[in-house]
């Protein structure tokens, strides 16, 4: 096995071979990705020849327009060939197994798989299975991780706030089901953010969430008091079906980010959201479009982050 036994996304030389989760990734690698992304932001020439001749397969077992599009743009700006596969509508419905699909695409000379799957761990499973010259990027798996989203959030925070060392950050909303929140918490911790708060109703918090080193709040005004960064999460409407939440209206009343609630944060606090937003559920339009919102820059930085991850991975050898 060429992968590092203690962290299967690294090779034996400690270099990033797959990007599966931000958990356990050294700060040095996170900074390397953020620094590389910086060289792409605002570049006059958008396209570089780095990955010419390489094939990037977007394997989306779960639909996502924005994430898939940004990965596609990132790969194309690196001159890779991009093949998009929405697998739910293709061979999986004909009964082909996940690994059969991956084997077939590998036989088509894939160099990189970008995987989104509703099952936690599916990208890890694929990464352990593929040949040593293939790289896997997790584009979101179940409730587990969404590392490129976490990275672009870190990029955004660093862009506006420069350092993590003095920051107070609040993550708000459906922590329980959120792979984004988990990636954010791991990255913030590794990069030295001293205070991470999570704000959510009890029903939308994982058990023992404090063990991740976060402070738990159930009240927005207390939780947002004097924070530098507010990271909103998307409330997935399917969660409303069960007994977790009485209604979208009630969620908005207590946890929706309005100007009044945001006033508890520092005056220069920034507001992030991974999109797509439910306006009037987790965030009010006046905040989403307001002066503290950095939601659209996040999307732009997301392309640079994905370019950086692909450039670093594709240059890493199995060793």
């Amino acid at each position, binding site marked *: 096995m060429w992968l590092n036994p203690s962290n299967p996304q690294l090779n034996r030389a400690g*270099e990033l071979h797959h990007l599966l989760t931000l958990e356990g990734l050294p700060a040095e690698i996170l900074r*390397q990705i953020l*620094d*590389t992304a*910086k*060289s*792409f*932001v*605002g*570049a*006059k*020439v958008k*396209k*570089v*020849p*780095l990955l010419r001749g390489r094939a990037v397969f977007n394997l989306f077992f779960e639909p996502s327009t924005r994430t898939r599009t940004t990965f596609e743009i990132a790969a194309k700006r*690196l001159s890779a060939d991009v093949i998009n596969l929405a697998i739910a509508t293709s061979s999986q419905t004909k009964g082909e197994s996940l690994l059969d699909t991956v084997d077939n695409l590998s036989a088509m000379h894939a160099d990189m798989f970008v995987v989104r799957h509703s099952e936690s761990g599916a990208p890890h499973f694929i990464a352990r299975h593929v040949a040593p010259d293939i790289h896997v990027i997790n584009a979101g798996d179940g409730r587990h991780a969404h590392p490129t989203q976490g990275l672009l959030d870190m990029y955004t925070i660093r862009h506006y706030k420069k350092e993590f060392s003095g920051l107070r950050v609040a993550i708000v909303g459906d922590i329980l089901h959120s792979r984004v929140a988990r990636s954010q918490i791991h990255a913030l911790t590794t990069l030295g953010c001293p205070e991470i708060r999570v704000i959510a109703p009890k029903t939308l918090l994982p058990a023992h969430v404090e063990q991740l080193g976060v402070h738990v709040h159930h009240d927005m005004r207390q939780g947002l008091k004097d924070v530098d960064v507010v990271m909103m999460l998307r409330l997935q409407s399917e969660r409303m079906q069960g007994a977790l939440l009485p209604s979208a209206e009630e969620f908005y009343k207590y946890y929706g980010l309005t100007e009044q609630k945001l006033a508890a944060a520092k005056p220069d606090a920034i507001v992030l959201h991974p999109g797509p937003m439910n306006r009037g559920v987790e965030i009010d339009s006046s905040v989403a479009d307001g002066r503290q919102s950095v939601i659209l820059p996040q999307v732009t930085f997301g392309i640079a982050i994905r370019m950086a991850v692909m*450039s*670093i991975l594709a*240059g*890493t*050898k199995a060793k």
Partner: protein
Amino acid sequence: MPGNPLPDAEQLLKALIEQMRPAVGPETGLIGIHTGGVWVAERLHQALALRVPLATLDVSFYRDDYESRGLRRDVKRSEIPFEVEGRDLILVDDVLYTGRTIRAALNEVFDYGRPGRVQLAALVDRGGRQLPIAAQFLGATVQLKSGQSIELERDAAGRLRLVLREGGK
């Protein structure tokens, strides 16, 4: 290091400035290649009092050794703050060796436009060319033993110095 056999970088810089002075005009664009080439270019740009702002290039995304060596860790953003189309350009690097960095730089520059002419200035030429590339402006030629390499360093006061490395590339 006992008896630095390498020429004094500050002297080479002076020689380079005098060579380039008659060759540059008000529209000449100077492009430094990261990292050492940018240091040299900054000094040349100032000494030659060029009007066109200095450009900097990081050729990491155009290198031909990406396949074998991967991406360098400290990639910088390339900045060419002027119109390349039709302009006389001078690429600036610290050490000219295989010529592959210059090949990458030419490719990158052409993504910005079609320059009128491109010339090359280097502080030192250490031989070992693998491509048909030559410097029009050159500080000095040095002979190295195999396994040796040269690097440019810049101290806190901004002074440049060449250092010999053993067991290099």
